[in-house]
């Protein structure tokens, strides 16, 4: 019983913080670049694609065997470099790509591609995958 009451109190407190500290931050090129290079200072970014909702960014890197992924699951940023040992699958849906990262703590990502030419994204996402025999599941 005490546990249930505690859980309800926690939910109330969480909603209170959500109300008082609304999260309006979106990804921008500057935030994506700065945070990705903070995590991977030895990488060079060639191009940044930010999804329509400003929550996910894909990065083309000079090292074409890798793709950068920058997420904003709440008000903070999470970066990953998807190299050959860290694989991912992509499946297109309505105006979006679903990116399934093989990482226990990265949930599936929906990347809305509104005004980004899908073939440019595909070309980039294939670059790191072609050499290992069709991981790219479309």
């Amino acid at each position, binding site marked *: 019983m005490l546990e249930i009451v505690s859980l309800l109190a*926690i939910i109330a*407190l969480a909603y*209170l*913080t959500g109300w008082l500290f609304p999260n309006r931050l979106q990804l921008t090129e500057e935030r994506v670049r700065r945070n990705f290079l903070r995590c991977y200072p030895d990488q060079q970014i060639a191009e940044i694609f930010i999804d329509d909702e400003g929550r996910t960014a894909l990065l083309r890197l000079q090292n074409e065997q890798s793709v950068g992924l920058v997420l904003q699951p709440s008000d903070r940023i999470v970066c990953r470099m998807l190299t050959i040992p860290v694989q991912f699958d992509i499946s297109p849906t309505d105006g979006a790509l679903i990116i399934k990262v093989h990482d226990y*703590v990265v949930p599936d990502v929906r990347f809305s591609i509104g005004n980004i030419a899908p073939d440019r994204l595909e070309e980039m996402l294939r670059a790191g995958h072609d050499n290992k025999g069709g991981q790219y599941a479309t």
Partner: protein
Amino acid sequence: MPLDLPKPTEWAIPLFILCILIEIAYGYKTGRAVFEKKDTFTSMVMGLGSTIVSASLAGITIVTAYWVWENFRLFDLGATIPVFLAALVLDDFRYYWIHRFGHRIRWMWAAHVIHHSSQHYNLTTALRQTWTSPLTPGFLLAFPLYIIGFEPAIVFFVSGLNLIYQFWIHTEAIDRMPRWFEAVFNTPSHHRVHHATNPKYLDSNYAGIFIIWDKMFGTFIPEDKSLPCRYGLVQDLGTYNPLKVATHEWVGIFKDMWHAKGIKNKLMFLLAPPGWTPDGSRLTSDMIKARDLKYNPVKTPKS
């Protein structure tokens, strides 16, 4: 008959909630404390889960501790005020080492990483506690205290006080305490550095109550105003799912050990520092510090 002492963490809970509400109000007014809905929820659920795990295992913890104390103690120390004070200091010394091992041995990091998994730093972060410490050998570090002769109830009591002490230091709302206090005690400033992922700050300030242990054993790094702390993990979590937060490093260790070639590599994945791999393809904190020096060399003053 074991000493019947109060459980400090239980009677501190209303105080914790009150302090969190004050910090939320202060953060809302001044912007000097930041909260986020999912982060708050996860931190507090981790705290609730941790108390449930501790309560479920209390029986076996008490029986084991008393068995060691009754069979192996060197002295009968009794329960006087000086004994309580000595227990508080020695238990803090124990905490320093368990915490240091918690960052340097992946097996123990698997349990402790939970406390560092928030990218925020506020009083709810203090409650983001592990669910899995009973799966590590950390409990063995309390045995020397029982063998010296401290009654387990006294050790549990002072450990509770230690945990309560560490609550208030999880805040950005307090800048610095008076100089003498900063010199002796762990403070929000020292502990912010401990939670920071800036390469310069990694693996420092393991103290519980007394910062003197870090100064004695070479792990003290003061907060540098020109380098604001950035909190979280060197590889931050993309999830707020409490079950995943609690288990992710264990899953990682299991996968790595499963795929590792040879018994030595399997053991190294358990016992080496987090980030260790046989081929150096991931980064340990030492490698991150070295990489940082390459990109941001320490500027020596011109002579």
